[in-house]
């Protein structure tokens, strides 16, 4: 074959040409820019406009950030150091750092306690959040954590939280023992044991063991208060929301109407009204002299508010399931509780994740509303004591920027986790 044209062709190339690099305009950064930034004329115009805007934004903010003053005792000292140059007065953050995080009344020798509770929060949350990758035994710590955190943050004797924990364990044991007789009976039995345990804990909880310095609820403040309200209310409102959503779909008219009225009433009232009720009006209904802990009042109100919203989100998830799933549960001979737990809820909750996270993030940000009922959360600390001090009156951007940053970090983290969780649970074949 190769000889066929040996005479007719003067030259035949017998090796492959080496690969040449693509033209400069078709590779690397140039190509990417051409494709993504300057594909068409309108695109190019928009790109240039965007670059100009970004330039002006950076030109305005970068000197302010880089030139910032971190060491000063008052806004006037900041200005003296700056001598008219642009620069943020971040010294307020270093001066009032502990107040921003813990409020101004938390005893300064005890800051390690909420800090430790915060770190342990991750340890406790991890087994729930990454349930596929961590051993299930770690869930035991998650169960212990609320009581541990309560003891760490509020202090006092370890006995009451410990008794309460034992009460929950006893309730769980009772539940397991009665489970054969049906979910409802078992739940009622467990609840009964729990109430007995709470009463017991109240009566013999005076014993002093491992006492930490007690901190009053009204002394809580700063970002710690936002975190307490956020985590407690979110973790309480999800189970309550599920119960409400199921109750609203129930065939039993009384339960159904209780749930409907609760959800519609709470959703129809602004959160700030509920907070005022918790703070101001409840005091009139309680006997004089009783001080029903303000944080607990606020937690109840925010939880009720969030539960109503989460209930509606989950109801949406339940409604999205095909009827066949309910019928499948029935045809397998599962009772109501089993069908819900094993078939319906796992799917409905998966659909509801974006909605639940949406409510949770919104709720976390709404915790700043407590500043209007004179609780000193992060925003309350900034608006009240810090801006009202003669030293720092007038430092707005730095403080509110810092608050925004803290909230952004938490909310963005939650949002990223929820997206990861959605991918993780994505078992259907789309």
């Amino acid at each position, binding site marked *: 074959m190769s000889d066929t044209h040996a005479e007719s062709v003067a030259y035949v190339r017998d090796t492959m040409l080496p690969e040449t690099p693509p033209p400069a305009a078709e590779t690397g950064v140039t190509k990417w820019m051409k494709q993504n930034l300057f594909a068409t004329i309108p695109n190019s115009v928009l790109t240039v406009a965007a670059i100009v805007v970004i330039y002006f934004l950076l030109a305005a903010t970068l000197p302010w950030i880089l030139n910032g003053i971190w060491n000063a005792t008052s806004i006037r000292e900041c200005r003296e150091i700056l001598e008219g140059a642009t620069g943020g007065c971040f010294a307020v953050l270093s001066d009032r750092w502990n*107040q921003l995080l813990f409020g101004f009344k938390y005893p300064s020798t005890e800051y390690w306690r909420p800090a430790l509770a915060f770190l342990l929060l991750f340890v406790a949350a991890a087994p729930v959040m990454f349930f596929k990758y961590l051993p299930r035994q770690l869930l035991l710590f998650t169960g212990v954590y609320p009581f541990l955190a309560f003891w760490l943050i509020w202090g006092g004797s370890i006995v009451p939280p410990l008794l309460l924990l034992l009460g929950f364990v006893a309730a769980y044991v009772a539940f397991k023992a009665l489970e054969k007789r049906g979910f409802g009976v078992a739940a009622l039995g467990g609840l009964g044991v729990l109430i007995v345990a709470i009463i017991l804990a109240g009566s013999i909880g005076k014993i002093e063991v491992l006492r930490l310095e007690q901190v009053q609820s009204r002394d809580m403040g700063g970002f710690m208060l936002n975190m307490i309200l956020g985590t407690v209310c979110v973790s309480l409102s999800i189970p309550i929301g599920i119960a409400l959503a199921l109750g609203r779909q129930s065939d039993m008219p009384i339960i159904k109407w209780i749930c409907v009225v609760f959800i519609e009433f709470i959703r129809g009232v602004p959160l700030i009204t509920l907070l005022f009720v918790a703070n101001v009006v409840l005091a009139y209904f309680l006997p004089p002299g009783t001080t029903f802990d303000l944080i607990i009042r606020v937690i109840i109100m925010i939880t009720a508010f969030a539960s109503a919203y989460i209930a509606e989100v989950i109801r949406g998830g339940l409604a999205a399931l095909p009827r066949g799933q309910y019928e499948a549960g029935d045809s397998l001979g599962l009772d109501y509780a089993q069908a819900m737990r094993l078939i319906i809820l796992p799917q409905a909750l998966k659909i509801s994740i974006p909605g639940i996270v949406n409510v949770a993030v919104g709720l976390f940000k709404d915790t700043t509303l407590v500043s209007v009922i004179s609780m000193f959360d992060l925003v309350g600390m900034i608006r009240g004591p810090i801006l009202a001090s003669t030293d720092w*009156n007038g430092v707005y951007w730095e403080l509110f920027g810092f608050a925004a940053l803290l909230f952004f970090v938490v909310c963005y983290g939650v949002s990223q986790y929820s997206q990861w969780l959605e991918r993780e649970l994505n078992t259907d074949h789309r």
Partner: protein
Amino acid sequence: MKKSVFLGALTVAGLTAGAAAAATLDDVKARGTLNCGVTTGLVGFAAPDSNGNWDGFDVGVCRAVAAAVLGDPQAVEFVPTTGKTRFTALASGEIDMLARNTTWTFSRDVDLKFEFVGVNYYDGQGFMVPKELGVSSAKDLDGATVCIQTGTTTELNLADYFRKNSMNYEPVPIETNAEAQQQYLAGACDVYTTDASGLAATRAAFEDPSAHVLLPEIVSKEPLGPLVRHGDNEWGDVVRWTLNALIAAEELGVTSANIADMASAAGDSPEINRLLGTEGNLGEMLGLEADWAVKAISAGGNYGELFEKNIGETTPIGLARGLNAQWTDGGLLYSPPFR
């Protein structure tokens, strides 16, 4: 207005509960601390410092009362209240007294069933303008744009004042003092109007305070003072006369520096002797120790000292005494005699 009617109704409801525990003085003594309502933070008047200790002009009154009753100016539990929660906190008995730059008005005194025990700061609505505007009197403000907080009495006072002087103005409604500060500095309005003490504090936070002037005209009366619940006159007397003791001490030249000397033995002035308890039994009449006023004055100094330390001309806020000078110096401070 609606809100205050609502709060008033609540207050009446609360009074039935509060009246049961009328003997506040005994309660405070038994408790060992004074529950004093203050603001959640107002420059110069009440704010916690970086160590969490409350400081300020209103705080000084709380500390003086605590010192008079309990002998310890630190024995105060400060309860921060907002403009919306302050009256219910007092009516429900959560606090024993309220020292939160609250204007003494008819309806608060009569309708809300409180008792204002005196005035610790005579405030009034004023105007602030940039110096470069070249305005020296509020009468020159015809046609100005004015930054004004909505829904407050300052809005009504402003309208009244301009109408009375047949001038026009253009309001720029704003929500908070912080917003006002930014708007005013950005030039969105020529004039910013609110209480004169607030104007001074706002100006103190400016980068160049000297570029702005407060106009001399004061267009409203805002007497700010501590208040207690109706119906417990003994307690009201304690707070009233503690405040009067601070004012009288300045008039009589008793300061925190010389009080130890003066109180050690009866001196030449009978009124000082009666005030400091070296003569007579005024303390006993109040149900307090004989040296109650000595302790109250030692807590933070007399009225003038408190003023100078927190809001006076040596502080960044730099308020002049003005109406708050002693009557002997042409001001309004006038304590009834200690006799």
